[in-house]
C-alpha cells in the first residue's frame, strides 16, 4: 500500500492503495465516483474513459502510480451542473438507451472536441471507434457530437 495524492475534478483526494490498482477501481470503490464504468477491464470497450491531462484515457488499465501527478477529470467533473455542451447535446439528441456506456462516450467525445473543434466525420469515427455501445446508439452518438461541436462554437 502507498499513499497517493490524486487531483480529480479540481479536488485533492488522498488514497492509500496498492500502486498497481487501476484508476477505475480507485474511483469506484474508494472515492464513490461511480460514473466511470467497468466494462471489460482490458481497454477494449471504453466504458471507463476519463480525461488524464485532457486526454481521453481508459482508466481500467491505468495504474494509480502513473497518474499521481496528473489532472484527472471524470464524468462527474466534466461540468458542475451537467451543462457541458457535450452533455447537453447528448440530452437533446436523446442518445441513451440503457445509458451504461454513455459516460465513456461523452468523455471520449469531449476530449476530441476540446482538441479539434471542427472534426470531420472521419475524425469522429477515429475517436469514437474505441467505445462500444451494446444498445447500438451509434447514429445518435454521431449526431450528438455534431450538435456539441456547433454548441461549442457559440
Amino acid at each position, binding site marked *: *500500500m502507498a499513499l497517493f495524492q490524486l487531483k480529480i475534478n479540481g479536488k485533492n483526494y488522498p488514497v492509500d*492503495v*496498492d500502486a498497481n*490498482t*487501476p484508476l477505475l*477501481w480507485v474511483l*469506484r*470503490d*474508494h472515492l*464513490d*465516483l*461511480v*460514473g*466511470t*464504468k*467497468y*466494462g*471489460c*477491464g*482490458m481497454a*477494449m*470497450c471504453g*466504458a471507463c474513459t476519463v480525461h488524464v491531462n485532457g486526454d481521453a484515457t481508459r482508466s481500467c488499465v491505468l495504474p494509480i502510480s502513473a497518474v499521481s501527478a496528473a489532472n484527472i477529470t*471524470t*464524468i*462527474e467533473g*466534466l*461540468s458542475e451542473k*451537467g451543462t457541458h455542451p457535450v*452533455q447537453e447535446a*447528448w*440530452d*437533446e439528441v*436523446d442518445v*441513451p*438507451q*440503457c*445509458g*451504461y*456506456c*454513455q*459516460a465513456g462516450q*461523452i468523455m471520449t467525445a469531449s476530449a476530441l472536441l476540446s482538441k479539434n473543434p471542427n472534426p470531420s466525420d472521419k475524425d469522429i*469515427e477515429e475517436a*469514437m*471507434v474505441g*467505445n*462500444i*455501445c*451494446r*444498445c*447500438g*446508439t*451509434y*447514429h*445518435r*452518438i*454521431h449526431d450528438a457530437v455534431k450538435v456539441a461541436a456547433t454548441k461549442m462554437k457559440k
Partner: protein
Amino acid sequence: MSTNQSRRDFFKTTAAAGGGLVLGFSWFSSEAFQPQVVGTAAADAIDFNAYLAISPSGTVTIFSPNPEIGQGIKTAFPIIVAEELDADWEKVKVEQSPLDTKKFERQLTGGSGAIRHSWERLRKAGATARALLIEAAAQQWGVPASECSAQKGMVIHSSGKKIAYGDLAVAASKLPVPKEVKLKATSSFSLIGSRVKGVDNKDILTGKNLFGIDYKRPGMLHAQVQRPPAFGLKLKSFDATEAKKMPGIVNVVSFGNKVAIVGKTNWEVMQARKAVKIEWEKEKDLESSADHDRLFKEMLNGTNVTVQRKDGDVEAAFKNAHKVIEAEYQCPFLPHSPMEPMNFFAHFKGDSIELAGPSQTPEAAQKQIAKMLNIAPEKVTLELTRMGGGFGRRLNTDYAVEAAELSSIIKAPVKVTWTREDDMTGGIYRPAVRYRFKASIDKAGNMTAFMLHGAGLNAGNSTRQDNFPAGAVENLLIQSSDYKSPITTGPWRAPITNFLAYAEQAFLDEVAAAAGKDPVQFRLELLDKAEKSPVGKITYETKRFREVIKLAAEKSGWGKKKKGVSQGFSVYFSHASYVAQVAEMTMAKGKPVLKKVYAAVDCGIVINESSAKNQIYGAIVDGIGHAMYGNLTFKDGAPQQENFNKYRLIRYNEVPDIEAHFVNNGIEPTGLGEPALPPTGGALANAIFKTTGKRLYNQPFADQDGPLG
C-alpha cells in the same frame, strides 16, 4: 364519498403524506376496472397498486413499476398516464417502484409485452384523475363540469378562468371516483407520439449512481465468484490459504460448485482470486464445437423429432414437385454481453433479506430466493436499479440467487460483481441451432410445400410453427429436435426468432429465386393465399403484414435500378409487431459493403417517437453486429472467447445509414424492444446474395468472406 371498500375495487384515492391527491391505480387485468373512492386514509392505500400523486405544489409523480433496461419503459408508461391526465409533462416526476407483487402485476421486462399489457389501464388511470380534477374545479366555481376542460396541468372553464391541478388536489381526493371515464380519441393525442427525451437522461449524462453495479450500502463487502471454467466440470477442492492472507480479503467460501472471494474492494478481490488454488473434476461431457456439428447432424437425420405443426402432406408434394429446394442454416451460441456485467447486492438478516440490483424478472428472483432461504416471499425485498442492458440475460435470476446465498453464508451485506470474463463464460447463452429447410414449387412458381426441421442445443422448440409462411402453404411440416447440453442457455433478445427469421427469410429468397419471382412479389402472393384460402391456424394479420412490406418497398425504391446498389428484402412478425427491412449494398475494392437499411414498422400507436426510433435503430445495429461477428465457440466445455478482445461487438464505424418509417394506423400499441431485430439478418444475407451471388448459410458472416461494415 362512497363507503364501499370492496377488495375487488381497482381504484383508490387517498390523501398524500404531504396533502394532495394520490390515486392508486391498478395494473391488474383491466376487464374488471371499476374505479371507486374507498377512503382517504393513507393506510388504506398501501395494499393497492401503483400511484399517481399530485402534490399541492403542482408536481405530478408517476411511479413506474417495470424494470428499465434501456427500452424506454420508464418514460413510456408515464407518457401514457400524463397524456390522459393532461398533465404538464415538464412538471411530471417519474420514480422507479421497487418490487411490489401486491401493487403490480407483470413487473418484468421481457417479450416486448409491457406496453401491450398496460396500455388501457394506464390510460384509465390518467383519465380518471383528470375527471376528478375537473369535477373539483367545477364545484369550486359552481359551474357544470361539462363546461370545463383540462390542459397542461390546469382545469379551464369556458369563460377562460383557470386553476392548477395542485390547487385542486385536496378537493379532488374527496370526490367519488367515476365508474366510467371517457378516454381521449387517439387522434387527439399530443404527448403520445411526440418526441420525449428519456426521464433519466440527466442522471445518466452526469454519472449518477443509477445502476446495480453502482449500488452501495454502509459496511458492504465486495465479492467475485469463481464458477467452473468449463461446462461439465464441478468443484473438487480448493485451497485459499494464500488468498486469505492478501490485503483486503475478508473470506473465501465455497457453495454449490463455486468459490466466492469476499473482500473490501473489487481490485483486491480480483488479485486474491488468482491466488485461490482450485481443482475441478469432470461431471458431464465436455463438449467442443466439433461435437455440436455432429449433434446437429444426428438430430436432423434422426428419429427423435417432435412434430410442431402439420398441414397437408409434404412428402406427396415433394414427389410431385416441379422443383425442390433444400438448405441448412446454422447459428452459434451467443453471450448477451450487456455493457453492465451481472451483479447483485444482498443483505441477509436471519429471517429476511434485502436485495438490490438489475433484474428483468424481480418477482421470480424474490420467489426463488425465498424458497432457497426458507423464508416468506414478503421477507424478500428487492430494489430495482436501472439496468445497463440485458438483452434477455437478466431474465435469468442465477446471479441474484447467488448473491443472496453468499450473503446468507457470510452473514454480511455483499455485492457480487461479475467480471467481463465471468459474464461471457458464465453461461445462459442464446442456444446454437441448425435449421433444415425443404420447399417445393410447381411449374407456375407457386410454393406447394414447406418443411422446417429445427435442431437445437438446449433450445426447446427451436421453431415458431404458426408463424408465416404457415397458413400460406397447402403442405407444411414443422418439427423440432433438441439436445440437452451441459452448456446453459436462455432467452436472447427476440428468442429463437433472432436467428429463425434470418434463416427463414433467406430461404424464402432462395425459393423465390427458384420460382423466378421477385422476393417482395413472392411474399405478397403468399399473403394473398393466406388471406383468401388460409391453411390451418393463422396468427398474423395479412393486411398489416402487407402494409409493412409495401411501405418498405416504397421507401427503399425496391426494384428500381440504383446504380451499383443491390437490395435484400426481409419481413418478420414477432411480439405482435410487424417489421419489413431492405438492406442496400455496394461493392468496394472487391468486397460487399452494407450502406443502408430501410425499416417499415407497424407497432400500432407509437408512444414516444424518440425512443421508438432509438429501439429500431438499435435493434438493426444489434442484428447486423451479431449476424456479422457474434461467435462463441467451445473447446472441452470451455468458452473460447472470454472478453471483447476475442469476442467482437459491432462498433461505431461498422453501422450503415438507417431510415425507419412507421405505419400510421392508430391500432393499440405493441412492443418494440425486440421486433426490429429478427428481420435484419435476412435482409443483410439477401443483399449479400444479390451483391456477390453467394448464399451465406451460417452465422457469423464475417468468418466466411462476409461483407465489410
